[in-house]
């Protein structure tokens, strides 16, 4: 049995990370992809900024959503942009979504022992024009998905997406293919619900709809409290 004893004063080290909140979500359809994020940047109990979207446009066919520590999100997207430029200049073509995903995995693993505190989700169109979603963990493990939620409210969103898009835990329901309009409506609805219960999610929702025409952005207001 452990002895009960008073441990005395505790030393607190400087932490190189901060948690800035935010939720990202990506959905892949037959010929489109959606990357959505809320726009609230928080720290501790305060709000730094109400208009800081977490979706970053990489190419005409790829958008990345990054949430976690905002400092690392900014640096990581800067590095990805630089690498995209280098690839374009050496190979005379733009990187495809799959290639960006593979590259990001190596960038993240390069910092395996001092990770980028970022939860990434890439959404875009693959070479065949079909929607693609790639989800990552902070050290580079990734997989291709149909839909994925990441960030602070991910645990609230993912089960609903599993049910509505993946038709999980339902019997006798027709598996209708997801249309653009239905997907955007679903994304708006799930973020409205997430903003009710997650304190880090709110202020506004930025939706990036990626089709072969390009990337179309829209912003919808969310709860501000």
């Amino acid at each position, binding site marked *: 049995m*452990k002895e*009960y*004893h*008073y*441990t005395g004063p505790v030393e607190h080290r400087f932490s190189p990370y901060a948690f800035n909140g935010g939720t990202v979500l990506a959905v892949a359809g037959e010929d489109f992809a959606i990357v959505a994020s809320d726009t609230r940047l*928080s720290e501790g*109990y*305060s*709000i730094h900024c109400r208009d800081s979207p977490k979706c970053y446009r990489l190419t005409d066919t790829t958008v990345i959503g990054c949430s976690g520590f905002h400092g690392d999100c900014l640096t990581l997207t800067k590095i990805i942009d630089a690498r995209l430029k280098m690839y374009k200049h050496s190979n005379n073509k733009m990187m495809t979504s799959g290639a960006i995903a593979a590259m990001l995995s190596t960038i993240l693993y390069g910092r395996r022992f001092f990770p980028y505190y970022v939860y990434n989700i890439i959404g875009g169109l693959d070479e065949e024009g079909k929607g693609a979603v790639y989800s990552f963990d902070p050290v580079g493990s990734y997989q291709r998905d149909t839909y994925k939620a990441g960030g*602070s409210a991910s645990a609230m969103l993912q089960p609903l997406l599993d049910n*509505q898009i993946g038709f999980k*835990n*339902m*019997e*006798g*329901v027709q598996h209708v293919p997801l249309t653009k309009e*239905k997907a955007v*409506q*679903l994304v*708006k*609805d799930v973020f*409205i*619900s997430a*903003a*009710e*219960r*997650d*304190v*880090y999610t*709110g202020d506004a929702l930025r939706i990036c709809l990626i089709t072969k025409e390009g990337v179309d952005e829209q912003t*919808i*207001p*969310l*709860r*501000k*409290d």
Partner: protein
Amino acid sequence: MMQQQEAGGFNFENSRRNAVLESSLAENGFKYLNPRKTGTTIAGLIYKDGVILGADTRTTDDMMVADKNCEKIHCISPTIYGCGAGVAADALLCSQMIAASAQLHSLNTGRRPPVAMMTRQLKQTLFRYQGQVSCSLIVGGVDDSGPQLYSVYPHGSSYRLPYVTMGSGAAAAAAVLEDRFKPYMELQDALQVLQDAVLAGILCDLVSGGSVDVCVITETGADLRRGVERAAVRGNRTGDYRYKRGTTVVLTKSTTNLRHDLVHESVQTTDQD
């Protein structure tokens, strides 16, 4: 058998034990039980005819909203109300304890209880628990000495002031009150200032939210108004998320009939006085 020396004062063995348990649980990857906090914005001010108290309505479980519309303004007596911040259970039960004592006092003396008496009972309880009962309260009311407003801190200190704010959103609310408070304001102006103060906390503090509740206490009594201002309303969800019967698979079904045999029947009429 060894005779243990009787030590005076409060026995803190349990708090040390809790601290050790918390660290040993964390070693094995379990999260320690976190009590629900109200993570609040509460504020009060004295105006021309009495006291106005205000509070937000959000309760959080860590950083998730547990209750979107809870009541943080508690009735202590018909002319004394208290707002609680900190651990929700502590705030509520402290208020209920002194409310019971207020009622007993009224019955014994035939008078309304003094605000200072309720505040003193609160601080003496909180001091006895040396801050382990982790709630901050604002106590406001009207008694024979006029309108009074006190803020009480978890370790047992209290301050009598013309306007106070407490909770995690206190800084935001205090900013508004420091700018716009004037002594002897009219009811409408005072209500607007207090609502705006609590609203500032709701918008700027992550763990405060929901709507603004106010309680106006005057010589004649108290008027508790829930939801006078809604900082934010839920957005309109356009999708239909209803499920047809049969969507959830029924794996097995078993029915047990409960047999009821009438054993004895008797009828008693009550006299209506």
